């Protein structure tokens, strides 16, 4: 049943029904599988079978509910409790003197694709926000995503300003950006990263969009990050699919891979995120990130930059919160990009933006094998259920739609599955390091194709002996836990015995920093 969720097209050939699992024609699922059901001649007619499959594979086209609403799985952890925006902002130290939590969007009136709860500058009134909203595409006003715990610079996200051909200006928007800049007195300029290539930003003026010009926004500096739009990404991934399915390209593998430009796009996204992270961690400037609508490339950049800056997001729970916050609550259009239950696979809105983000995370985890609490399986599981419709997590385009459908009441969260069986997804080499900024190398030399994901169904590229590896990981995890426990015992014992632990030159007292840094 759950297999059918990922289905997107099928045809009758000979005596069998051929199914195109997602990726065959649309690009949504990179499952890269085609299934063929060979049916015995007797029994049900093939036509019936085909129709049933079609109906259940594309429920929306047949007015049927998505599987997640029928799924009655029970888990002992409730994944919907993972993300609580107030708690997450409190963890970041908000509200503070300069930033407040606003409920202006409680009923999604200010912006229907934003979450109910927003963090905005203290000095901006609700009326200011409303006026700024009129000047931003789809009312997606600049709001805080992350604040640096020490230097108090921030990452702010939004959509493009509605400048248009005539070069319109909006005093409120200009003032608002200045207010954001002034939340930190040390900085003289607000840095704006426009994720798009320069030409695309200019072209957007024709449809009413655009970017912040120097004349209107005095205390800002604008950079373009050259990341292409959803259509380019979709075509690029389609090319990747073409070289790995149905036959894996052999003779000129590397140059074929190069011609897909997939890794190059990954590189640009990572490079952009590194720039954002670097700017913020240097404390020289706060950063405002936008693309066109601020729900694709913007989400990639802010979430990757936050992953580099904040070690909390590198834990399993932290990563779930990151996805829940920057992607799900801020309205990445999962329903449109993935097309859950929709048979129209040629839809131009489909695009593997979230997959690309996960690929970037995987590249980072390759370069920093000890920095992430989760393993590769965690990332693959997320992607599998991005398409599977087994959980409600990735359904619908925005929070308001989810609320309307009562998703949290009627479906199970993916995080329930993961958090009730966390050990499976843990990286035994994880070393918790607070306040360490990760700068991956975004050079083609250091990026690789995620073979274990994109080509995992090919038996010739089989993941070698996956079970022993996982088995060994479990052993290592157990070893680690045992170690921690024994250390705690030792610490207890020694603190009871030694009146002044600082005088003891060796032994448990010295081991303590070990515990904290390495476990």
């Amino acid at each position, binding site marked *: 049943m759950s297999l059918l969720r990922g289905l997107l097209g099928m045809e009758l050939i000979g005596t069998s029904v051929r199914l195109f699992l997602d990726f065959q024609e649309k690009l949504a699922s990179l499952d890269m599988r085609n299934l063929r059901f060979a049916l015995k001649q007797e029994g049900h007619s093939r036509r019936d079978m085909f129709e049933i499959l079609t109906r259940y594979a594309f429920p929306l086209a047949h007015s049927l509910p998505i599987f997640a609403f029928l799924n009655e799985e029970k888990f002992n952890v409730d994944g919907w409790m993972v993300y609580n925006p107030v708690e997450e902002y409190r963890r970041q130290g908000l509200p503070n003197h300069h930033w407040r939590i606003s409920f202006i969007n409680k009923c999604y009136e200010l912006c229907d694709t934003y979450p109910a709860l927003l963090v905005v500058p203290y000095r901006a009134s609700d009326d200011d926000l409303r006026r700024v909203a009129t000047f931003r595409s789809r009312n997606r006003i600049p709001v805080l995503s992350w604040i640096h715990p020490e230097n108090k610079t921030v990452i702010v996200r939004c959509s493009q300003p509605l400048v248009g051909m005539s070069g319109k200006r909006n005093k409120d928007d200009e003032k608002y950006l200045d207010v954001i800049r002034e939340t930190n007195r040390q900085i003289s300029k607000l840095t704006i990263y426009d994720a798009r290539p320069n030409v695309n930003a200019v072209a957007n003026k024709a449809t009413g969009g655009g970017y912040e010009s120097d004349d209107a926004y005095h205390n800002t500096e604008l950079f373009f990050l050259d990341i292409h739009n959803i259509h380019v990404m979709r075509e690029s991934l389609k090319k990747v699919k073409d070289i790995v399915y149905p036959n*894996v390209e052999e003779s000129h593998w590397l140059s074929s891979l190069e011609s897909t430009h997939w890794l190059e796009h990954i590189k640009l996204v990572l490079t952009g995120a590194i720039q954002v992270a670097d700017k913020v961690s240097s404390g020289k400037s706060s950063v405002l990130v936008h693309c066109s609508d601020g729900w694709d490339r913007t989400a990639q950049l802010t979430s990757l930059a936050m992953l580099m800056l904040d070690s909390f997001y590198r834990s399993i729970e932290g990563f779930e919160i990151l996805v829940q916050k920057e992607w799900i609550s801020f309205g990445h259009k999962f329903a449109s990009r993935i097309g859950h239950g929709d048979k129209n696979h040629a839809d131009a809105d489909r695009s593997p933006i979230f997959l690309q983000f996960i690929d970037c995370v995987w590249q980072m985890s390759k370069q920093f094998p000890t920095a992430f609490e989760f393993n590769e399986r965690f990332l693959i599981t997320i992607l599998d259920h991005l398409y599977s419709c087994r959980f409600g997590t990735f359904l619908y385009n925005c929070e308001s739609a989810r609320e309307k459908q009562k998703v949290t009441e009627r479906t199970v969260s993916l995080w329930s599955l993961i958090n009730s069986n966390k050990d499976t997804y843990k990286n035994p080499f994880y*070393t918790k390091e607070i306040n360490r900024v990760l700068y*991956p190398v975004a050079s083609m*030399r*250091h990026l690789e194709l995620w073979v274990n994901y994109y080509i995992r169904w090919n038996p010739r590229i089989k993941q*070698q002996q996956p079970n022993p590896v996982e088995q060994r990981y479990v052993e290592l995890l157990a070893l680690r836990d045992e170690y921690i426990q*024994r250390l705690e015992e030792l610490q207890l*014992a020694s603190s009871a015995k030694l009146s002044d632990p600082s005088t003891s030159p060796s032994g448990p007292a010295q081991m303590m920093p070990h515990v904290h840094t390495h476990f």
Partner: protein
Amino acid sequence: MDEIEFSSTGSGWGSRSEVLAVGWGNSCETVRSLLPRGLLNSCPAGVSSCPASSCPFPSARSPRLTLLESVLLPGPRPTTGGMEFLELIRTGRAQVKLLRGPEAPPLRGTLCVTGHHLLLSPGPQGTSDLWLLLLRSVDSIEKRVSGDSGTITLRCKDLRVLQLDIEGVEATLDIARSIEALSSLESVITSFPFFYRPRGLRLGDAWHFHPPERYYKRVARETNAWRLSEVNEDFSLCPSYPRAVIVPRAVDDDALARCARFRQGGRFPVLSYHHAPSGTVLLRSSQPLTGPQKRRCAEDEELLRAVLAGARPGAPGFILDTRSAQAAKQAGVTVGGTEAKAAYPGWKRLHRPLEKGRPLQESFVRLVEACGDLEKSMDGWLSQLEACCWLAHVKEALSTACLAAWGMEREEACILVHGAEGMDNTLLVTSLAQIILDPLSRTMTGFQELVEREWIQAGHPFQLRCAHSAFSHAQPKHEAPTFLLFLDCVWQLGRQFPLSLEFGEGLLLALFEHAYASPFGTFLCSSEKERCLCEVRTRTHSLWSGLNQPKVRRKLRNPLYIPNPLAIWPSVEPQSLQLWQGLFLRWIRPPEPSQVAWEKVWQRLASKEKTEDCESTSKPQS
């Protein structure tokens, strides 16, 4: 002098900050280890005659340097040519700034050229440690002068690129000339291994590593169809074979002697590996000298017949030729050739052409060039990588080894591998096949034995093949990175089977460095015979004893290892093979070098032991 530490980079010496993977020896031991034993106290020519007395360094400024220098400066041991290093050193010192790549901060200080090393003393105010580089590890040197200063770029055999900014044109030119002369010395017995005396190691320690004999004991436990022959005791039969070889019991030494005359370079078929589970064997040899007259050799035919007779009844035999069928035929026009079908019943011939010699070296050079070309736009990186063909060579080597292993394990066949001379690709195939099949060769000790037995003792001409690495401007003569290709293949295996190798990347990197330039004698010379003549065993230290010191060995371990009794069949699809970043991008690495990561992993595992120690120390208190 406490600060110096012997770095893993056998080819070089690094300050502590540089030492990543393996640092052996603790602090002051290093200085002592530098002393050619006896050179200090009973230096044949007396230390006073060493240039130390005309030392350019005011000893008050850097006493530690003076001491070191007196130790490192050319030992007056008479050399074969009667030439002393001193004559080659045009200038002793200069003020320099050393740039060590993008990550490391520059070092400033006084540079000193000695007989075997470059050393840089940061001076009294210097915060960093003394820096050393083995001159033998310099692959190419480039000098530029402008105004009153000059720049020397040293490209090392371990693929590192160093830049020295030197004050004074004259000094630059002199130092460049000295380095050039000293790094290209070819004499074996004046090389550094003959002077290197690390503390904690005794001469001759690991030379008991006699794999043919040791390996024979294992074979003898499994089968009695084979015997250890000392027919090559005086290297007269085959100069590139060790003294003892394993041959079929049914063939006597006289027959072996006649076989040897029928094979190029005397390399008659010998046992490489006995695969106990299927009772079959892997043999290696060189090509038969059939020539245009289609000569035959009854003893050679008898030997191969005896091999099949000793295996499972009815076992087929395969001769795996590492040349193309055409190249093999070509060889037959002159002196070489292949085994005629009619003459060797039961044996079938397969051709799996593997690249060797110059094309392989060129592929290596192109790859290193591409990796080091940071200026160039990265757009074409993947197609550039493909154009180097290095990964294609890796793929071919692995799939040929798989074929040999498959034949033994699944077809239960005996396999004879040879190319032309049988000391390059032949060894590549036999050694890789063993790693695929034999769980013992995947252990730390087993792998070292394999390298010793299948490469060093089997006569891979390291002296010729590793004379230069990828940077040399000289026209390659005999250079070829076959051994590096082997290490790369092993790395690929380790990547695909992260649990099955007991050693980590560190050991492979160390072997790469030491094969090209080393303070140890293990990779010196091209054959056992030469090593005997040079008394390598008695006068130099073995790399194996260096690597097997508990402190070093522990760090070379793969913390994930669990013994795997099965054969490991790698995927050889191009998607499954990766560039060995740890080697080729080692000096232009990501911020967290995987070595550092592995170090952490290792710490994690070792922490259990620590807890136990901790527990035992805390118990007496209670």
